[in-house]
């Protein structure tokens, strides 16, 4: 019997906080400025300068800690993490070592294999480093260019317990984490722009063994799919080594998306000895109960809670609740529309059908689109009140999406109002009966399905505007005799 292995994964996630200014100075955090425009003596680490902590960054870190079910520290401090690298002008990063803002949390995740709880070891504050552009690849470049705009942008690092057992769990954890940060609105969580970054520790051990195997640290996974692919590759690589009797080497590896494999960074980095010591330029942080309570009061309803409420209180299917709460803007849009239109399932159908289809086609978010929650509610009410047919509504909806106009105005201007006028419909029905003797005969011979064909003809004649219920009834009356 060959040995069966179990995978052990822990994630370190860096989240850039959406403050206006940097963590220790007043430089702007705006993305996309020309190189080195957002720099000052503090973030450049010039001698004689003093960092001063941004209160908003602490607020956000506390909120993150609370949302991840952590204990918030009463007393916290900052430490210097020392290493030499050109993206770090001071040759140390101000971070937190032994007294982070938050510790001992957990979140719930769900994969196809079931529900799991993942521990959150800690949430700590630190400053981001600058951006390096190598002239050529890092190996053969003659030099590198440094942009310090990002230096000093506030980050929280969220460290998980080694609680994940599959790449799918890691992906689900990251997805949930991102969603929580988005609901908190403390980060824009854009993985491509680097405002959410993920490193993983991954190792294998024989099933039943308590002790962890030798781990690899995996970096440079810049998307959700890269996280899953990189970890899946690494599971196989380590398994192959162990099964052939080899030993996994503890090292940092980088995910190469183009090659679809992980590559050793061995020999490319110094031994880790960061010589942490307390940052003497900052004073300690005391977080009072009052401060914690204030942040607690500012927490919005979090995705899990909203999901539960949508299922339990609104009676939505779990699938609908998952889709709607899986995006903060979508969930907020849904709830805003619900205020004016109290049929959750019908509203959900339209949002998951037409709305998501158009959003995906145009690669837009709900707020980018022309549709407002109020206008969608109004349109659905118009369907329910027989002002427009469901078919015409799809046309109206597309117009609302592109123009941002009010559905009543669109229906008015385009003459899309449903025809519910008895005599007008009678004329059209009479014409259709006259033009389709075969179908009429079929109906009279008891082929009930032929009615559908005739209704379709009336709809065609009226370009979808006839009230289908009335048309059906009129046809049956006329053909009975």
């Amino acid at each position, binding site marked *: 019997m060959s040995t069966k292995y179990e995978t052990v994964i822990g994630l370190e996630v860096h989240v850039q906080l959406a403050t206006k200014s940097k963590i220790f100075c007043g430089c702007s955090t705006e993305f996309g400025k020309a190189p080195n425009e*957002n720099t000052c*003596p503090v973030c450049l680490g010039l001698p004689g300068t003093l960092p001063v902590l*941004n209160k908003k960054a602490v607020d956000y870190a506390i909120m993150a800690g609370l949302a991840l079910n952590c204990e918030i520290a009463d007393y916290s401090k900052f430490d210097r993490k*020392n290493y030499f690298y050109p993206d770090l002008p001071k040759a140390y990063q101000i971070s937190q070592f032994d007294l982070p803002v938050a510790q001992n949390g957990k979140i719930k995740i769900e994969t196809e294999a079931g529900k799991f709880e993942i521990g959150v070891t800690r949430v700590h504050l630190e400053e981001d480093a600058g951006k390096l552009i190598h002239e050529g690849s890092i190996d053969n470049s003659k*030099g590198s260019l440094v942009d310090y705009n990002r230096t000093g942008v506030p980050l929280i690092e969220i460290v998980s317990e080694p609680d994940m057992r599959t790449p799918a769990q890691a992906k689900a954890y990251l997805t949930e984490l991102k969603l929580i940060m988005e609901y908190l609105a403390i980060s824009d969580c854009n993985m491509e722009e680097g405002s959410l970054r993920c490193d993983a520790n991954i190792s294998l051990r024989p099933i039943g063994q308590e002790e962890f195997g030798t781990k690899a640290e995996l970096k440079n996974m810049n998307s959700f799919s890269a996280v899953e692919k990189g970890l899946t590759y690494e599971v196989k690589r380590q398994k192959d080594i162990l099964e052939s009797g080899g030993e996994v080497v503890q090292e940092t590896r980088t995910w190469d998306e183009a090659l679809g494999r992980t590559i050793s960074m061995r020999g490319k980095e110094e031994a880790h000895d960061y010589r942490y010591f*307390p940052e003497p330029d900052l004073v300690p942080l005391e977080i009072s109960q009052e401060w914690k309570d204030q942040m607690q009061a500012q927490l919005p309803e979090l995705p899990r809670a909203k999901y539960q409420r949508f299922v339990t209180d609104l009676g939505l299917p779990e699938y609908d609740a998952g889709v709607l709460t899986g995006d903060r803007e979508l969930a907020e849009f849904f709830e805003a529309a619900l205020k004016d239109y109290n049929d959750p399932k019908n509203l959900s159908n339209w949002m998951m059908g037409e709305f998501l289809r158009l959003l995906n086609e145009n690669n837009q978010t709900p707020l980018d689109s022309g549709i407002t929650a109020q206008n969608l509610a109004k349109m659905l009410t118009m369907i329910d009140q027989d002002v427009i047919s469901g078919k015409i509504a799809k046309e109206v909806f597309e117009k609302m999406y592109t123009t941002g106009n009010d559905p009543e105005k669109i229906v008015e201007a385009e003459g899309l109002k449903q025809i519910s006028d008895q005599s007008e419909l009678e004329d059209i029905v009479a014409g259709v009966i006259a033009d389709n003797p075969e179908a009429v005969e079929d109906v009279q011979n008891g082929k009930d399905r032929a009615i559908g064909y005739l209704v379709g003809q009336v709809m065609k004649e009226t370009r979808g505007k006839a009230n289908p219920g009335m048309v059906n009834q009129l046809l049956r009356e006329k053909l009975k005799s």
Partner: protein
Amino acid sequence: MIDKKDVEYAAGLAQLKLTESEKEKYTEQIGQILNYVDKLGELDTEGVVPTAYTVPMKNVLREDKVTESLPREKTLANAPDQKDGQFRTPKIMSD
């Protein structure tokens, strides 16, 4: 006591190249400093809360307001090398 290996390790982390005679000199000097600091161990600190700070201050915070950054010419004024508004470093990875 520390030995020469500790000095070599610390020098390596600080990216300092030391001559043999410097290593010996620093081993002795740093050893003396550490011995001196060890005297603190003789004090009775029972019941004293550890602290990393000497001033009785806490929570020095600023509001999240953007202030003016340096003009870029000034930021780059002392750069030994620069290109396209960026600092330019020599090759980072050694062969």
